[in-house]
């Protein structure tokens, strides 16, 4: 199965999503350094090709179940940047109205199931979404993300086994950024790749270079087509690297400078820009234009978040139970 051919407009849209995601997270780092935001920021800088490439082109009814570094997937799925920024700021216009931070929320109307900090425990819930679609004979799919660190959590095994038995319309995207907080891949795995585990469950596992937007997109589209056709799940492992520490306070001294430089040289954005330039879809002027556009969008998002009111204390007691 070939991935659908992308139009020039679609390529431009993906480029925008990549740049917006990067600009958003760079701004978060800056705001964090300035002491302007509370709590942890879990940067996905360096991994944007995965989140954008895998979430691009999904239907509104399809679901994503992102993790803490998957801001790009939320943007692609249609969560407004201002709302996401207000969420990070803990303001009332955030998805969780100040109840929790960062990506621990979601929006069912946009097809987003936000995770908790128990990484990997989103996968059984993602299976439940896919099982619901199956019960209704709908061909919507779920793209569920997890890191290689979470791959060793029991829920991931339970979910993959269940998805295989039920031939669910789900795509598991493993973002293997080589370190789970400080723990390198070799200390957590005795196998060369996470994707080989798919064999044990009885569905395809593929290994994709995660810094190549179009390769991630193509692999995901093949898996999505398979899922929509009722042929069951696929595990896509995307090798990548996170540039920042586990969270912004982590200096990541457990990694070598060479390693970081090597991966920074493989930055997914210039790589995609070269492709667009070759296709005459990008030049210096349009690139600068995009830079200005995403900066403007982020400024607006920050302004929206800053002007959003703080929730009031007693609101802490609301939303615990449905009426």
């Amino acid at each position, binding site marked *: 199965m070939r991935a659908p051919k992308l139009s020039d407009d679609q390529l431009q849209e993906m480029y925008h999503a990549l740049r917006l995601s990067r600009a958003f997270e760079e701004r978060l780092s800056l705001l964090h350094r300035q002491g302007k935001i509370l709590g942890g920021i879990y940067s996905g800088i360096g991994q944007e090709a995965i989140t954008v490439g895998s979430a691009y082109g999904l239907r509104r009814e399809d679901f994503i179940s992102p993790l803490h570094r998957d801001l790009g997937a939320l943007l692609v799925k249609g969560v407004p940047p201002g709302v996401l920024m207000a969420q990070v700021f803990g303001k009332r216009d955030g998805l969780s109205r100040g109840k929790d931070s960062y990506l621990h929320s979601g929006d069912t109307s946009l097809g987003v199931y936000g995770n908790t900090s128990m990484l990997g*425990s989103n996968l059984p*819930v993602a299976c439940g979404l896919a099982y619901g679609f199956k019960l209704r004979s709908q061909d919507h799919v779920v793209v569920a993300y997890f890191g290689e660190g979470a791959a060793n959590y029991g829920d991931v095994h339970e979910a993959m086994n269940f998805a295989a038995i039920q031939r669910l319309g789900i795509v598991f995207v493993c973002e293997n950024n080589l370190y789970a907080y400080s723990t390198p891949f070799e200390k957590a795995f005795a196998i060369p790749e996470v994707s080989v585990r798919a064999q044990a469950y009885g569905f395809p596992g593929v290994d994709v270079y995660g810094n190549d937007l179009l390769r991630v997109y193509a692999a995901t589209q093949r898996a999505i087509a398979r899922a929509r056709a009722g042929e069951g799940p696929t595990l896509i492992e995307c090798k990548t690297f996170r540039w920042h520490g586990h969270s912004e306070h982590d200096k990541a001294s457990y990694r070598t400078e060479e390693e970081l430089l090597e991966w920074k040289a493989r930055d997914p954005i210039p790589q995609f820009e070269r492709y667009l330039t070759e296709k005459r879809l990008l030049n210096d002027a349009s690139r600068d234009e995009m830079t200005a556009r995403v900066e403007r969008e982020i400024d607006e998002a920050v302004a929206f978040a800053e002007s959003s009111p703080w929730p009031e204390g007693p609101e802490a007691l609301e939303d615990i139970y*449905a009426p």
Partner: protein
Amino acid sequence: MPPEAGRSTDEVTYLEAIRQALWEEMERDEAVFCLGEDIGAYGGAFQITKGFVERFGEARTLDTPISESCIVGVATGAALIGFRPVAEMQFGDFIACGFDQVVNQAATLRYRYGGRQTVPIVIRCPCGAGVHGGLYHSQQPEAWFVHRPGLKVVAPATPYDAKGLLKAAIRDDNPVLYFEHKGLYRRIKGPVGDAETVVPLGVADIKRPGDALTVVTYGAMVHPCLEAAARLADAESVEAEVLDLRTLAPLDREAILTSVRKTSKVAIVHEASRTCGVGAEVAAFVAEEAFEDLDGPIVRVTTPDVHLAPFSPPLEEYVLPNTEKIFAALRKLAAY
């Protein structure tokens, strides 16, 4: 095979009452489906779902692998898009294996969505001792979940309540843990309501009126409490009021206060172990809110802090509350 249909006055077992509630709710609402281990063709470890596959199909009577975490997670995910799943933990003890999904995913979902999402799932937990089940088939873990906001917890004592509360739980928009007591399945019979009889969550029930002291209890312990109260009336002409909480979260605090203010004495009886059990909350609440009304110490009759339940009959009988122990405690309290 449909449940033993009949008039609302027909007496059925506690087990049959649960079966009727499930069956009728699945008939009533396409969004309701069941999932759990061995619940399909086999009909469940206790035969609650016997005949469901024939009527509702495999997709709505979903046999799952031994993956409790996945069972709870799948229920939660399906609830996000409009289903009302009823998950069975084959034994309530096994919910520990799905604990994270219950307390961190399902319980917090509405809160972290800023109130924009409902999570209508029911988790049925066959619980309780007195059946020589040993340490892993006898537990009463309800207090773990009463302590976690975002969850509702029910524990029915009679067929009528079992049916009505399960219907209410299925129709409720929150995650509800439903602790059905295995020891009552075939031992207790009684009338049940019809297809539209719902017992509201959060409302306690006076199972025996009285004016001399209040016994606050729930689940299987309602029955020995009623026996002890009857014996107390016979032996000493003392009328104990037996208040069945029915729902442990949210707790019907008003009903507790009303009864305690009437009787001025309170004994709390539960099968779960003592420390930080539901009785501890009831006792603290009564002490905070009705201290001036009390005319005696707050008394608790519970299983001591041992694992539920030791296997050998003499050990199990030694630790569990029973009519005799409750009677002795009530008599002492009445005489205070």
